């Protein structure tokens, strides 16, 4: 019975995503999609993947990560770097993109493990600040990094292109603050939707598995979970690194949607991490479908209402505060339950009267 309910709920989530895809295909076939909307389709998929994966850390694991954009950045650069390097080896753009996705996910996941090992064994709010720090470190490092490739192999420098000491035929792949230029524009809306579905499949299956239940028990009561023999660090690390790897996938998608990739505060900075957090909080902590809907609405809405653009960040801030107080304050919860009870009583008396 319970299992069926979960299955139905998950199927609805998948169905919504597929329905969106069919709708978009129909609209674009009949020419109802503006160029603005077309440009928005792949970023929408990116945001949905980011929101769903962050929800795994924040909603399911109950730890705050403020470096989700940092993991995205790692994935983006790892993926784009691979695509550029393999230009001569694998001629098919699609195949290179596929491998780039895997590599981006693996590298971001690896960074997730590296960050998670020292931090996740600690109690308290350290993860938030360390992930924030990680995002800044990565952005700093990439902005001073120069990597080139010639017949002697890779050259690495943190100064400038000339100090790479390369042959004339060599190619500079990462040019410091300019980043990587000339990545093929391989990302399409269909690929984006497929990646969204894969992300959902991974996250939803994890949540409804033994491991997922262990992760949620850690969130609800760490001490009780530990006392029944759940390995806290292992499961925390598992959720966190999967979340990071999925952010890496979103990063690779991002890198292959634009022809040039640079780590600026705008795309991989703190604000980006906060924006994803707003999606997760507005959609409901732990509610995967909510994250999808919130990501779509909050991305599409400000683009349509250009006039609100100046107030967008302000609205995000207010959404965070109001949602948190309304959902988590002990008084608000009490008030809501009193209200609900009254509502129910009203209903039953109405029924009795009838």
């Amino acid at each position: 019975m319970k299992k069926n309910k979960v299955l139905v709920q998950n199927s609805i989530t998948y169905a919504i995503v597929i329905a969106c895809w069919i709708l978009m295909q129909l609209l674009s076939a009949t020419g109802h999609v503006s160029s603005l909307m077309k440009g928005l389709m792949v970023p929408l998929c990116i945001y949905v993947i980011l929101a769903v994966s962050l929800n795994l850390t924040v909603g399911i694991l109950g730890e705050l990560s403020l470096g989700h954009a940092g993991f995205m950045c790692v994935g983006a650069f790892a993926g784009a770097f691979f695509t550029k390097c393999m230009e001569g080896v694998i001629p098919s753009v699609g195949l290179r993109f596929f491998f780039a996705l895997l590599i981006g996910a693996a590298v971001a996941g690896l960074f997730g493990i590296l960050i998670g090992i020292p931090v996740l064994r600690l109690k308290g709010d350290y993860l938030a600040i360390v992930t924030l720090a990680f995002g800044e470190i990565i952005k700093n490092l990439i902005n001073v990094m120069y990597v080139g490739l010639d017949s002697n192999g890779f050259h690495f420098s943190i100064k400038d292109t000339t100090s790479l000491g390369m042959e004339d035929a060599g190619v500079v792949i990462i040019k410091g603050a300019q980043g990587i230029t000339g990545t093929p524009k391989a990302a399409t809306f269909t690929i984006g939707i497929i990646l969204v579905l894969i992300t959902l499949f991974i996250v939803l299956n994890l949540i409804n598995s033994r491991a997922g239940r262990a992760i949620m028990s850690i969130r609800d009561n760490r001490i009780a979970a530990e006392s029944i023999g759940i390995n806290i660090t292992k499961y925390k690390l598992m959720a966190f690194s999967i979340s990071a790897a999925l952010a890496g996938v979103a990063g690779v998608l991002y890198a292959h949607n634009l022809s040039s990739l640079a780590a600026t505060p705008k795309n991989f900075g703190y604000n980006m991490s906060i924006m994803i957090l707003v999606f997760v909080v507005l959609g409901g902590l732990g509610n995967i479908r909510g994250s999808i809907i919130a990501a779509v609405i909050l991305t599409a809405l400000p683009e349509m209402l250009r006039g609100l653009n100046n107030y967008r960040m302000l609205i995000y801030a207010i959404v965070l505060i109001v949602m948190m107080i309304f959902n988590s304050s002990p008084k608000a919860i009490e008030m809501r339950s009193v209200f609900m009870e009254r509502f129910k009583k009203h209903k039953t008396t109405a029924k009795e009267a009838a």
Partner: protein
Amino acid sequence: MSFLSYLINGISLGSIYAIIALGYTMVYGIARMLNFAHGDIIMVGGFAIFTIVSTLNLPPLLGILVAVVVCTLLGVTIERVAYKPLRGASSLAVLITAIGVSYLLQNVALLIFGSNARQFTSVITVPNLKLAGGKLSISGVTIVTILSCILIMVGLLLFINKTKTGQAMLAVSEDTGAATLMGIDVNRTIATTFAIGSALAAIAGALLCSTYPSLTPYTGSMPGIKAFVAAVFGGIGSIPGALIGGVLLGVIENLSKAYISSQLSDAIVFSVLIIVLLVRPTGILGKKITEKV
């Protein structure tokens, strides 16, 4: 000689971090929460001084006074409106709210003052000190910063150890439940802590903007985060720890800027945090808290 001047500038920067870290550490010790908006209160203080001194052409001392009052009121209001309703809620909820407040302050400032950097006129008019026959020059701001940090630290320690309110703060940080039973008004104590922390943030804002005279709505966020690193480094909850952590971090940042790479100095500072958490999660002076079930 250049090493010495880097070192002194590092100590000065570290003193600012220490003053900010005090606010973090006190609030964390008493309310068990990470006040993310603390860094942005510094920015508000900076803009308050900017408005008084540069726009209205009033004396700098009045500017600092107004900034302290504005920040204190702001800190108490934030606590009352955003954090107090969440007392007893999960720490995740409080943390997200604090980030929301931080974001709110930044964006309100952005709407009022715009994103262009404002030139901040230094509020400190102490002449530079020349040592060793003019080879080593220490700026007046540096001297004032270091002195005010020492003064604040001593004052705060005296306040906590000698006054009734200070003792109440200690008691609440030890055990909130027992403190309530002893007749301590916990809500008022927490509000006092926020008031003191925010007043210190205003002073830190004045010193920070006098040292680095450019003011944007994001001025406070990076020093705020670094000051948190300093608080963790020194041992969160410990007041002398904030001083030690702040000064060490300032010195590390300035020396790495001078000798390694100016672009990588932030990365190095944040790596310190990760190393500290790996080696000694409680920080230099932090106490290990045993957990009771």
